[in-house]
């Protein structure tokens, strides 16, 4: 379980996050939403231990995030950032194997390689494994990095949970892979020790897959709860400043129970 309590983050006298408290349990799909600049990525970076909040604590199970070494934390927590800047000619499988770094002493073992192959299989990357990463399309690159972070936390730790933090993982994917990807996350969630938190923009996808949504607005919690509780016209109007006509365009998605109940 990943627990953030009383998180406040201030940068250059701007309050980026104010008093955010949230619990992310394993086995459920947690989505963070909000307009641009709401503090979603900042929250995820704080959760990942990349950024220290001005106040508040981040607990991985019963351990504060500050109690982990960089490598220890990486062995149980993987995170996919918004932008990838890899600009060197590596093969796809080499990029994926990088994810195994926190588990590797010296040379990668056969197990490490097997985990990488399995992660690549999950994302249809087997055929690309010998390809030069730089020759891939944006969506293919995103799948490679997704396989990399999955490989990072592929095996269950002896105790405690694994954590997967995803910052806008769907940006470069086509609709097929967006749904495919979300379905696979759902499947992974059946392993009961996995905590998944994803920042998403797409209301339709969130409405379809989320078990729990945190809606941020100007660094504060605008709403938190099930999709039915959070994705209401009132909240969306308030947070995204949509007029009634535009809101109508998103309403059908989350008010069709048939499309949300069987995921």
């Amino acid at each position, binding site marked *: 379980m990943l627990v953030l309590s009383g998180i406040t983050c201030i940068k250059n006298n701007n309050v980026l996050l104010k008093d955010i408290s949230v619990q992310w349990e394993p086995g459920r799909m947690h989505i963070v939403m909000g307009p641009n600049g709401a503090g979603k990525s900042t929250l995820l970076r704080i959760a990942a231990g990349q950024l220290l909040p001005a106040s508040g604590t981040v607990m991985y199970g019963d351990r504060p995030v500050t109690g982990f070494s960089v490598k220890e934390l990486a062995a149980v927590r993987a995170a996919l950032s918004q932008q990838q800047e890899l600009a060197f000619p590596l*093969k796809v499988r080499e990029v994926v*194997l990088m994810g195994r770094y926190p588990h590797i002493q010296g040379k990668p073992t056969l197990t490490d390689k097997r985990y990488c192959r399995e992660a690549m299989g999950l994302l249809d990357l087997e055929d690309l494994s010998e390809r030069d990463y730089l020759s891939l399309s944006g969506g293919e690159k995103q799948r490679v990095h997704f396989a990399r972070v999955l490989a990072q936390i592929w095996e269950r730790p002896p105790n405690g949970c694994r954590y997967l933090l995803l910052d806008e993982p769907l940006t470069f994917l086509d609709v097929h892979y967006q749904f495919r990807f979300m379905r696979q996350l759902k499947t992974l969630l059946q392993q009961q020790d996995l905590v998944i938190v994803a920042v998403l923009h797409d209301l339709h996808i969130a409405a379809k897959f989320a078990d729990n949504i945190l809606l941020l607005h100007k660094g504060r919690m605008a709403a938190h709860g099930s999709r039915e509780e959070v994705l209401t016209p009132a909240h969306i109007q308030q947070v995204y400043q949509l007029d009634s006509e535009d809101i109508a365009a998103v309403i059908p998605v989350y008010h069709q129970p048939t499309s949300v109940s069987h995921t």
Partner: protein
Amino acid sequence: MQNRPYNGVFPGLTILLVAAVLLSACLGAIDISIGEIAGAAGKLFYNGSNYTLHERIFLEIRLPRVLFCLLAGAALAVGGVLLQALFRNPIIEPGLIGTSSGAAFGAALYFVTGAMFHFHAGVWMLPLAACAGAMLATFMVLGLSGSKEDGKTGIVTLLLMGIAINALFLSGTGFLSYIARDPQARSITFWNLGTLSGANWDSVIITAVVVTLCCWRAMACAAKLNLLMLGEEEAQLSGVGVKRLKIEVMVINVIMIAVVTAFTGVISFVGLVVPHFLRIWKGADNRYLVAAGALAGAILLTVADIAARLLLRPAELPIGIVTSLAGVPVLIFLLKKKKYYF
């Protein structure tokens, strides 16, 4: 990263290196035959005396120069590999971020003030002065180009700041050679162009100790540097302590380059060309680049040194001129031949 077809890379480079070293040992202002080399070695090991003139030239001048050349080439190439990995940009080399010009300034300062005040405090003073200058210049470049916003270093700012600081330290060295008396001024000028002619057993031993230690640390950092290719944020998320890694790599690099520069002056392009060539050849794994870079850098500088000694025989060219003359076209060719990644 494994299973790359690296077979043949290291034996091939080693054979080339041995060939280059033998050639380099034989050729020069005075040619020395293999027989004479063997004779000198024999007398050295079996406590012989009465060396012939050629044997003495080999032992006292040629051999330290050849060995020093290997070490300097390895250091320059590994320095280039480290910096390119650290900044994730294949156009960085130690000369561009102030390391070389700072080292040159520190060494020039030692030459001039040492001569003025008549102190000569042991063989370690020159490399130490160069290290201090290199540290000062490099950390000035890094410190001044880090943005206040997020502490990240933009590559363009870094290069521009490198140009500014290089100009500052070069003019400092220029000033020193202006106020220096004739013999020192001459050694400063020669030395801004890069030369191996001053190599002796002292410089070989110091450089051997420093370069070996630094290359060993560089190998230990290489796997982490691979993850840094993903970006600093990603490397940290994947379990690499990025801050410590950056400091360690910078320190290794500055010490290694400064010590070499202290004895040879500024030799450019080796740190740029060697990693480029190796990356086009077999890919970007830094463990391969560090190890193969050390060998290939040694080969390249040895070949350049042979050229420097033969082109104007019996006089010799400063090696920095040779590496620049040869390095520029090679680099342009490599860049044009393959669509490269910037």
